[in-house]
């Protein structure tokens, strides 16, 4: 008997099959067509996870879901589609699927889920490691997660500390001096890593022994560390970049949960979560805005995370055909309507009786105002626009530039940063962000740190 965990795929579209195969190397895959008799026969070896394509051959979504659920009561069942039509995530889940994914948007989440499930199902034969930046790690402090480093030569992970142990000093020195800057944490222990990072960030901001400047510098350098994760080699592809952003998001979430605003944040999340999008612009903007806020010491990270989550909820109230268009493709009339969305977001927040701080409302209302006065809805210019709104705008822009759109090329994080900087430097009429704020923001990104002025 093979101890490799086996996976069953049912009627996958060829291009989805390719994606899945890329995601899984060390796994045995049994493939069957979407055929009722085959669905009901035993497969060997017994799978530990089932991935199904969209319902076809006369099967309804409910039928497919219930059949698989009856056949495999205990297993994770994932549905993977590449066409939006007929993709009703909620219904699929209601009828028995564990989760449903729309590719290519959800590739990251699918990859993460699959790795986690396989790691669980394999009883330790498959281990999945995630690259991380461990903030403020010292040789004295035990970590409640295992750490490893990756050896590119033989493509192996070498364990550097056990769960509950501290990392060796000599290793830390090596890590600091060499280019090897990523450590790895087993996927099943990521939650511990998130709380660790969040706690570090909280401690830095509240340590009584540090002066205000020291606190700010320390936070800035930590945020720089986290953000630099988005620029590493592992993050070069869109999917893994998004996975790292998600990790940052988990840290931000944990950060907020450890603070006073915990309940309030999860309530908002529950409202937004109803929409069930795996890949979420709002989530990304929320994460980035909170990180920018922490790194620059402007506004409260909690407020910025909230503003990020809610900034575009008004778009849902726009006519459907406008919602799916990019602003550059809109007719002048459509654009006029689109420009109402910041106000509509505010209205929806009021309508749903979500209580949010005044500054969050202000940031949302002004998130499309531009420093040169060419923005909307009010055409405010200069310092009339609040800094929180500018941070939100930058987070929004950054995610917009780096996100994958149908048929539209995306920029890598470094390209996006370069784009933001050039735009403002090359053409003074295009000053969209307060120059000093943008300058400081760029220092949070790798390569954006000003070169030291002193010579050795």
């Amino acid at each position, binding site marked *: 008997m093979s101890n490799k965990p086996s996976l069953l795929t049912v009627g996958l579209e060829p291009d989805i099959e390719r994606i899945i195969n890329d995601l899984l190397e060390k796994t045995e895959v049994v493939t069957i067509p979407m055929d*009722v008799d085959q669905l009901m026969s035993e497969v060997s070896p017994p799978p530990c996870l089932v991935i199904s394509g969209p319902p076809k051959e006369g099967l309804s979504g409910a*039928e497919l879901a*219930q059949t698989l659920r009856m*056949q495999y*009561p205990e297993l994770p069942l994932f549905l993977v589609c590449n066409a939006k039509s007929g993709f009703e995530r909620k219904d699929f889940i209601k009828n028995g699927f564990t989760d449903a994914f729309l590719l290519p948007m959800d590739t990251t989440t699918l990859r993460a889920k699959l790795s986690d499930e396989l790691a669980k199902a394999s009883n330790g034969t498959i281990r999945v490691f995630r690259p991380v930046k461990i903030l403020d790690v010292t040789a004295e402090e035990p970590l409640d997660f295992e750490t490893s480093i990756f050896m590119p030569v033989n493509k192996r992970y070498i364990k550097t500390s056990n769960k509950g142990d501290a990392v060796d000093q000599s290793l830390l020195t090596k890590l600091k001096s060499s280019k090897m800057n990523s450590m790895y944490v087993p996927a099943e222990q990521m939650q511990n890593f998130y709380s660790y990072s969040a706690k570090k960030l909280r401690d830095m901001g509240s340590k009584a022994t540090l002066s205000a400047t020291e606190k700010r510098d320390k936070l800035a350098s930590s945020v720089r560390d986290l953000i630099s994760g988005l620029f590493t080699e592992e993050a070069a592809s869109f999917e893994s970049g998004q996975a790292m952003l998600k990790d940052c998001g988990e840290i931000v979430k944990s950060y907020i949960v450890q603070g006073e605003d915990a309940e309030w944040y999860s309530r908002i999340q529950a409202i937004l979560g109803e929409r069930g999008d795996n890949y979420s612009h709002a989530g990304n903007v929320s994460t980035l805005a909170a990180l920018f806020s922490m790194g620059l010491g402007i506004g409260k990270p909690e407020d910025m995370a909230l503003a990020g989550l809610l900034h575009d909820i008004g778009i849902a109230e726009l006519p459907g055909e406008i919602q799916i268009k990019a602003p550059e493709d809109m007719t002048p009339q459509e654009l006029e309507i689109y420009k109402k969305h910041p106000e509509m977001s505010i209205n929806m927040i009021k309508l749903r009786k979500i209580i949010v701080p005044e500054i969050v409302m202000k940031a949302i209302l002004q998130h499309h105002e531009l420093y040169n006065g060419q923005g909307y809805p009010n055409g405010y210019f200069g310092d009339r626009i609040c800094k929180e709104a500018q941070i939100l705008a930058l987070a929004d822009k950054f995610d917009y530039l780096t996100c994958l759109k149908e048929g539209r090329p995306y920029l890598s994080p470094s390209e996006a940063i370069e784009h933001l900087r050039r735009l403002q430097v090359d053409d003074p009429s295009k000053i969209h962000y307060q120059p000093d704020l943008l300058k400081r923001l760029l220092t949070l990104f790798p390569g954006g740190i000003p070169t030291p002025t002193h010579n050795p």
Partner: protein
Amino acid sequence: MFNPSTPVLVVDDMMTMRKLVSKICKEIGFTTISEAADGALAWTAIQNANPPIGLVISDWNMPNATGIDLVKRIRADSRFNGIPFLMVTAEAEQHQVVEALKAGVDNYVVKPFSAPVLKEKLEAIYNKRLAK
């Protein structure tokens, strides 16, 4: 427990679900299994069956006549009102089981279920009827 030769009628509008439930019935040991695609067809089948149906396993939500409609018809007809009736429900319908029990259902099983679970339910029905 039910005699393996008891004629079982499996009622479900989903072909796959019918096949699955029939398959499970076979696994449990039943040898005479017939199928119907909704409550109305099931009622016709029950009236025409020879030998008579000895156990109905029916889905709840179906076009034409639902599982509830079916059990009400069966209980209202003196020729058939003694047939044991097991209702198959989706998780979402669980809060409505009181309605089903009032209508005359002997027991219910929530989808998804496995062979041992179905067997347990059927044993419960059998023993309860025996005790009466």
